[in-house]
């Protein structure tokens, strides 16, 4: 079990003055712990498992200017039978979504006006009250601290990753790197997507017309022990049947998931669900606007909505999971064309990042 002796607190400030502070709940570190555990697996420092309630410790990374108790991030130490690993620093932006939620509650209380600027900072206070945070963190993530409203005992089981050995260089040699605007997230899990699957995604989008559509991304995780590194090889897109779609939403129904799982079993190739793809038919969204606005319309650029993030977090919480948005963007010279933007967990946050397009043999 674990031993962090710090309690993390988020502070909201207006004009440098503290308006509000709230403890960072234990479950808020769950994505960071998941990412740290997977990072340890990628670097060959931890056995090939995710979840399973490893012993974890959150270590403050003190702000270099303000000093303790203010942090510019934190690191996660993961200890398991067979290894231990300390994650790279996870930046303070990990808490930005939480800070935004706190600010919204201040808007509702009238302590902040709509549109008023605020900043946030995070402190790590020594001498946590009650149980050490790490112990509670492990408990919170496993449900072992269940309450009377939780009638069943639940134990998180570790997921063993099937990591067949492959030479990463042979993949890199026959691939082209695609980078998002604004630069790639460094040290992200390499993802290889065959070119023909991007064409399939484009055809799927075209067939759906003015409504969104979706697919489940399946494939394998591979390991190159010489580096050491783990990478994802996408092998197929399974168009989701039985979805319900509108122009701005696609619902993957219970029947969609059941049918997808049946296809996976029928393929019998040992593939796993790596994530999901959905489309943004922006050329239809923008059809009522003046064409001069299309090239700069934010709806005609890659974006991953709050709803998309919730989808991904709920259904694909593992740190190796990915999401692809295939959408329309407008170019003054080429007209409407389709982009494929890839999102994935990095430092415990969903972010757009680069990928490799595997060229057809």
């Amino acid at each position: 079990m674990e031993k962090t002796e710090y309690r993390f607190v988020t502070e909201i400030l207006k004009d440098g003055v503290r308006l509000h502070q709230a403890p960072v709940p234990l479950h808020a570190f769950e994505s960071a712990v998941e990412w740290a555990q997977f990072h340890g697996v990628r670097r060959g420092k931890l056995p090939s498992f995710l979840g399973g309630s490893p012993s974890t410790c959150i270590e403050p990374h003190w702000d270099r200017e303000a000093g303790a108790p203010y942090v510019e991030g934190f690191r996660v130490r993961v200890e398991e039978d067979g290894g231990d690993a300390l994650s790279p620093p996870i930046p303070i932006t990990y808490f930005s979504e939480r800070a935004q939620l706190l600010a919204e509650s201040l808007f509702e209380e009238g302590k902040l006006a709509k549109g008023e600027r605020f900043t946030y900072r995070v402190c790590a206070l020594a001498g946590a009250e009650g149980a050490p945070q790490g112990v509670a963190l492990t408990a919170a993530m496993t449900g072992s601290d269940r309450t009377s409203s939780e009638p069943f005992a639940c134990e998180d089981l570790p997921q063993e990753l099937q990591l067949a050995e492959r030479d990463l260089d042979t993949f890199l040699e026959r691939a082209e790197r695609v980078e998002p605007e604004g630069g790639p997230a460094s040290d992200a899990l390499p993802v290889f997507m065959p070119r023909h699957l991007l064409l399939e995604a484009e055809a799927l989008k075209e067939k759906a017309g003015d409504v969104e559509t979706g697919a489940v991304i399946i494939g394998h995780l591979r390991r190159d022990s010489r580096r050491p590194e783990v990478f994802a090889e996408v092998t197929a897109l399974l168009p989701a049947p039985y979805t319900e779609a509108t122009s701005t939403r696609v619902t993957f129904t219970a029947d969609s998931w059941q049918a997808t799982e049946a296809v996976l079993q029928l393929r019998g190739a040992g593939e796993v669900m790596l994530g999901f793809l959905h489309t943004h038919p922006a050329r239809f969204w923008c059809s009522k606007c003046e064409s001069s606005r299309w090239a700069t319309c934010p709806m005609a650029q890659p974006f991953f909505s709050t709803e998309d993030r919730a989808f991904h977090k709920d259904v694909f919480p593992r740190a190796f999971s990915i999401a692809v948005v295939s959408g329309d963007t407008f170019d003054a010279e080429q007209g409407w064309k389709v982009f494929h933007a890839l999102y994935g967990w990095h430092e415990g946050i969903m972010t757009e990042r680069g990928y490799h397009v595997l060229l057809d043999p």
Partner: protein
Amino acid sequence: MSSQEGGVSVLVRDISGQKRQRVSGIPKDATAEEFVSGLVASLRLKTTGSQGEPLTYQARLDREGRHLQPSERLADAIRDDDEIALIRNVDAG
């Protein structure tokens, strides 16, 4: 429904199969509806969607390849170590 030590113990997995939990203490006299509701509470799953709409979960019994019907008694349906998939509709925007 009351929790009983020594009740049924099953494996519950999420939609994508990425996470699995051993869930124990499930009373055999519970209905499938009570079972699902207890699972949602015990696993601390969301009960409302992004628009505030209630989320409905279904439990699929892998051994028989079918969804449990809400009024079904667990004693008649599940066995120790059965694997159950907890599934619901999910929206992307």
